[in-house]
């Protein structure tokens, strides 16, 4: 049995924020909120867990630093320690200042790019992905709150109209 969801439309982010708080108070589970732009504090109001993407970025940065050190230690010190312009290639530490720019750049490169790729994977974004917004207006000037229906359509409809919804519709749940 395909479950149904109720879509409540709002046209103001302040009204939306109040609506989210009211719905949470009434102990309904909000499946999703579609917004045309980031609404400050919406994640807190919905009770979403904070992102851990900064932690992954830190780990990717450490990885980049390790790659840079291992690469240059192997190439410049171990494999072929040439005398290039009198630089001391006897040990990594002795010639380290010359390697720092690359160590820095690779740290930033790994931290930035792998974090972005992690973001794409976690939020399921790729070039030929089918768009998921329930209504094209959610990319322009409307906000849509999606709540699953469990034989309580009438009650939900009244509650949502109470919170200032400008339009309400019922749709099949979009399983993605």
């Amino acid at each position, binding site marked *: 049995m395909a479950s149904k969801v109720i879509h409540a439309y709002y046209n103001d982010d302040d009204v939306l924020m109040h609506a989210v708080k009211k719905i949470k108070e009434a102990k309904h589970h909000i499946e999703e909120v579609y917004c045309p732009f980031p609404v400050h504090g919406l994640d807190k109001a919905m009770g979403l867990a904070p992102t851990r993407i*900064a932690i992954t970025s*830190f780990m990717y940065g450490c990885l980049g630093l390790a790659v840079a050190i291992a690469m240059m230690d192997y190439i410049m010190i171990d494999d072929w320690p040439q005398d290039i312009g*009198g630089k001391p290639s006897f040990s990594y530490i002795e010639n380290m*200042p*010359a390697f*720092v720019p690359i160590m820095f750049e690779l740290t930033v490169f790994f931290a930035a790019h792998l974090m972005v790729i992690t973001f794409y994977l976690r939020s399921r974004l790729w070039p030929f992905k089918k768009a998921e917004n329930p209504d094209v207006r959610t990319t322009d000037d409307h906000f849509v709150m999606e709540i699953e229906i469990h034989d309580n359509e009438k009650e939900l409809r009244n509650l949502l109209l109470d919170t200032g919804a400008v339009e309400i519709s019922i749709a099949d749940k979009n399983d993605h």
Partner: protein
Amino acid sequence: MYTFSSRLKIASIVMMIVGALGLGYGFITMPTSVEEAKAMVASHDDGHGGSHGEGTHANTDSHGEHDASHDEHLLHQLQNKPWAALYVAAFFFFMIALGTLAFYAVQRASQAGWSPLLFRVMEGISAYLVPGGIIVFVILVLSVMHMNHLFVWMDADVVAHDKLLQGKAGYLDPVFFLIRAAIFLGGWILYREYSRKLSIKQDESNDNSSFKLNFKISAAFLVFYLISESMMSWDWIMSVDPHWFSTLFGWYVFASMFVSGITVIAMVTIYLKSKNYLPDVNDSHIHDLAKFMFGISIFWTYLWFSQFMLIWYSNIPEEVTYFVTRIEDYKLPFFGMVVMNFVFPFLILMNSDYKRINWFVIMAGIVILAGHYVDIFNMIMPATVGDQWYIGIPEIGAILFFAGFFIFWVFRALGTVPLQPKRNPFIEESRHFHY
């Protein structure tokens, strides 16, 4: 309204007395003759110090003459020790007040919405600019009067035998040097006092004219400050090594004073908040200050490394001696300060949650301040005392004396006016600041 707690007052006075005794001890035990200096070094390390002079140079013809000049050099280094300890600590605490003033001017000129709540704290810290600046100026005057050998170019005898110093004599002229110092200090103190006056006047006025005027003079001050600070760093710090020069030195000193100033703002704010004197300051304000501590620490490291790496890489003899002496004789302080000023705050203050925890910020602040003391120490000591450096009684005494004086003066100034500005146009935004 803040009242200077009597416990803090007594603590600061005790620090001043103990510090003054330590400094006095340094001056009393300063050697007055070559024989005394040799005896001091011999009693301290007869291991390597003795064998150096006698072993390697024993058979050369110029032995006697060389040894005599070497001994006199040693005497000057030992005589410089208490002076350099005094100068480093005096400059360090003065620099905190000046860095705070620069941060304050930036906040005013950028019309920051979060910081007006902290303006009185910054004004209180920059109050130290007046006595601190006068003390530094007096030390410079005493140097010009040949009371010490901190600045070797002030010695006419040395300049007479030194082509390089003769070439720089137009700029490194004792009278011109003092005139420049007076202009810098005069400009900074003038801005500080005038801006403070306008800031207090704004509280009682009916319009925003004082605020607007303060905005304009802050922007003008920043222009003056950037030029004067750069020249000040050449005059007061770089000229102890008059043969050496570096173009980014002014920014490097600036980064050091800026991060120290911001750190002290954060620490004083946390202290006052813990005593319930700043009820409207929330952890977002602390978070912002900690972000600045984090960011400017990295900026300092960037400049430190840029200066070091460019000179290390090209290895031009006349430039590289600066770092050769530091790495040979100051290995631990030279590299230790990079750990204290970069690695430690970088790892501690990276996490957004940690930046809101007061004791974390205080702990990072103590390490950053100690690290920047060592930074100034590394700038002054190698040229003045050379390998005779030691963080002993005169150095710690000087730190204690100026720390006590700094605390005494700053908290006395904090107690003179209400800690929260009343009619600043951004005060409401600042009170509700949330990040």
